[in-house]
């Protein structure tokens, strides 16, 4: 591994060579003379920013048009060559931040899925499975959940959304109405009351569903009990509120990967997260929004997926029901 050819301490290297190199660098920054050939990359005569290329090859252009990859229509040079903010400077490397934004100049660095910016959450499709709370290394995700009866279950027989509620399943939650809780709930005045609203249901985890009775272990007392499935309603754990401590978050992206319902996104927003106090760094649902387009897209995708799962489950249940009478008969 040879030394550099001219690396000998002589008069030539004392001033001539280093000063010639800095002069070339300085002359390159002036608009007209900066482009002349002999100033280009040291000893190579090649353009100083490297070849300006179209970022999308032909093959890529048709393949990725439908995702409208952000670098469509941009020219690309390895070292930033263009600026419209400062015309009388030939080749600026520095991005003059407030006046030029890197995501406008080099969009391929901020492809929505790839860049770990501020966290964006679709709270509507979150099913409070707490996968993200468990995966976060710095424990900055906090979530309050509550076991509730799904409102669709309360629809009476004739109602058009009857039967769409949560079905009882092993390991899921079940709810039983507490006697007399209906009247208590009716005359409870939230605005004037001094105590919490009365509990309407008691919730328990379903142990097994064989036959008509259901064995449930009540969350409150922990005792298991055999209950007729008729007076049980399906229940689910719902998210009440969630917050992210941006002060602790290191933007590693593990929560985005661990969320099974892709309601967790890392937006490509990197500024605007500073506050004056640490309390303000606790981002509630309002400050962890995602762009409306992305939000709508994600919600539709998720609902379509769940509808698909519900339909498949209904088919499986129907098939099982169709199959089981044969065995009985």
């Amino acid at each position: 591994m040879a030394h550099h050819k001219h690396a000998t301490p002589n008069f030539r290297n004392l001033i001539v060579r280093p000063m010639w190199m800095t002069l070339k660098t300085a002359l390159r920054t002036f608009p007209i003379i900066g482009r002349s050939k002999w100033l280009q990359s040291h000893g190579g005569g090649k353009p100083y920013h490297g070849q300006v290329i179209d970022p999308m090859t032909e093959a890529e252009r048709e393949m990725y048009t439908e995702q409208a990859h952000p670098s469509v229509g941009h020219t690309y040079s390895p070292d930033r060559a263009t600026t419209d903010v400062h015309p009388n400077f030939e080749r600026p490397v520095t991005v003059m931040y407030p006046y030029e934004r890197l995501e406008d100049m080099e969009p391929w660095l901020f492809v929505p899925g790839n860049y770990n910016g501020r966290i964006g959450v679709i709270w509507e499709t979150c099913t409070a499975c707490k996968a993200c709370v468990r995966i976060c290394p710095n424990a900055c995700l906090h979530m309050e959940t509550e076991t509730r009866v799904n409102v669709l279950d309360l629809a009476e027989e004739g109602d058009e959304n009857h039967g769409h509620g949560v079905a009882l399943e092993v390991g899921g939650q079940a709810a039983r109405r507490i006697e007399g809780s209906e009247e208590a709930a009716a005359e409870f005045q939230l605005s004037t009351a001094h105590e919490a609203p009365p509990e309407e249901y008691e919730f328990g985890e379903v142990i097994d569903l064989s036959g008509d009775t259901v064995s449930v272990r009540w969350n409150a007392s922990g005792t298991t009990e055999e209950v007729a499935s008729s007076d049980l309603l399906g229940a689910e754990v719902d998210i009440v509120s969630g917050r992210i401590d941006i002060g602790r978050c290191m933007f590693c992206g593990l929560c985005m990967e661990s969320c099974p319902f892709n309601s967790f996104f890392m937006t490509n927003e990197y500024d605007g997260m500073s506050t004056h106090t640490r309390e303000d760094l606790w981002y509630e649902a309002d400050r962890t929004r995602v762009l409306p387009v992305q939000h709508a897209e994600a919600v539709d995708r998720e609902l379509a997926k769940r509808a698909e799962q519900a339909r498949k489950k209904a088919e499986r249940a129907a098939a099982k029901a169709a199959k089981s009478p044969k065995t009985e008969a």
Partner: protein
Amino acid sequence: MATDDILDVRGWVRIGMDSVAENTVGMSRHWEYTDGVAWFLTEFVMTIVIFGGIMSTLFVLLWMERKLLGRFMDRRGAVTSLRSLWVGEGGVTAGEWWNQLPFGTGVPIGMLNRTLNKVAGNDHELEAVSRVKNRSYHGVWWMLPGFFQNLADGMKFMTKEHMVPEKADRFVYEVAPFMIIATTVMCFTFIPLGPQIYSNDSELSILFLMAIFSIAPLGVFFAGWSSNNKYTLLGGIRSAAQLTAYEIPLLIVVLSVVVLSGSFNMIEVIEFQADSGVWNIFLLPLGGLLFMVTMVAEVERIPFDMPEAEAELVEGWWTEYGGMRWGLMFSAEYLRTYVACLLFAHFFLGGWEAPFEDTIPFISMVPHVVWVFLKSWFIFIFFVWLRASLHRVRTDQILEFGWRWLLPLSLVNLAMATALRLWVYDGINGEWPILVPILITSIGLALFILLAIDEDPAAIEANTRPYSVQTTDVASPGQHRE
């Protein structure tokens, strides 16, 4: 005596002061002192003129340093433009401070601010710039973006607190900066800016100048010692050693110029170059090179930057100073660089004489002070270029280079000067045969180019490192423990 110049500042001032003296002292019973008073007032006004000229053009030097250094480093340098004086976030007017001024004197300022905001306000045709309300960053080139950044930095130092280190030697600590600053500013009395723009035209002005110029190192050493900080002590000692090592070759080179020009008076040196039609650089190229190198060491700029070496001494002897003392010392360093550039221009580039004074017809229309400033700023480019491209030399290497190389070369230069003066100039009744400068310059250039392309073919081919490195016998690591 000095060449006549359309900008005869001293003449106008003298006339003005004569009339002032006559109308005041002349009328009174001390009328015989009128001439004395007029003389004193002229000298006083001329000193102020020189001081004003230097201090305002100092900002050009600072601005060139930042922008050129930026360009050498492939970036822009300071870009805040003058617009920032009246432009704020969305035309904010800084609380309309002018309304607090008494007797409504603030009103015109307010009006001026509003018109300027309307004329050259925040909006800009570029969408990205106007979105963030162009806070005076986007300056056009003729608004000299970045020029007033140094003014703002300078004023910032006035607001900084002056803290004296706890166990510092209080008196010496306070005296040192003023010694440096006072002597540096006094140098400008002896430097003429033009044929009729000088504050002092004494017979031995170069001698005085060099004497005052070399007092500052003493102040540097006082500052280093008195700040009660080991690093500044080291910086002070290094700077004392370096400046003494480079004072002697500098004085010898100046002596060679004086010998060549025949007088100690700065203006006569320049007149000599003007009359004989040959600049000294073409007669003493070696002298010019030596002067440049020793001046870089005198003002402690990069290749000889040890006293203020960032890497190990943090800020060298400046570390413990804050506030305006540090600001003044910082500007004193640039004033000393400005003295160096002006001296190089006067000694070697013919002071205020235009490049082809008598041949180009209308060149004498341009006032001579312009040439003085242009030449000194051109020399300053070399100072910045050296700073951008060279590394810092170690202290012992500086001293060794100073004593072993510069001193003998400056003696050679002195011998050349005397030979040229006695045999060539005086021999042929007082003017240079045209062949002499051409011959000397071409020999100098040839020598420089020869050295510049010299390569050690054996070293390249054998790819070894010929440099015999003198190292103190290094204790093998771990040895000192036992």
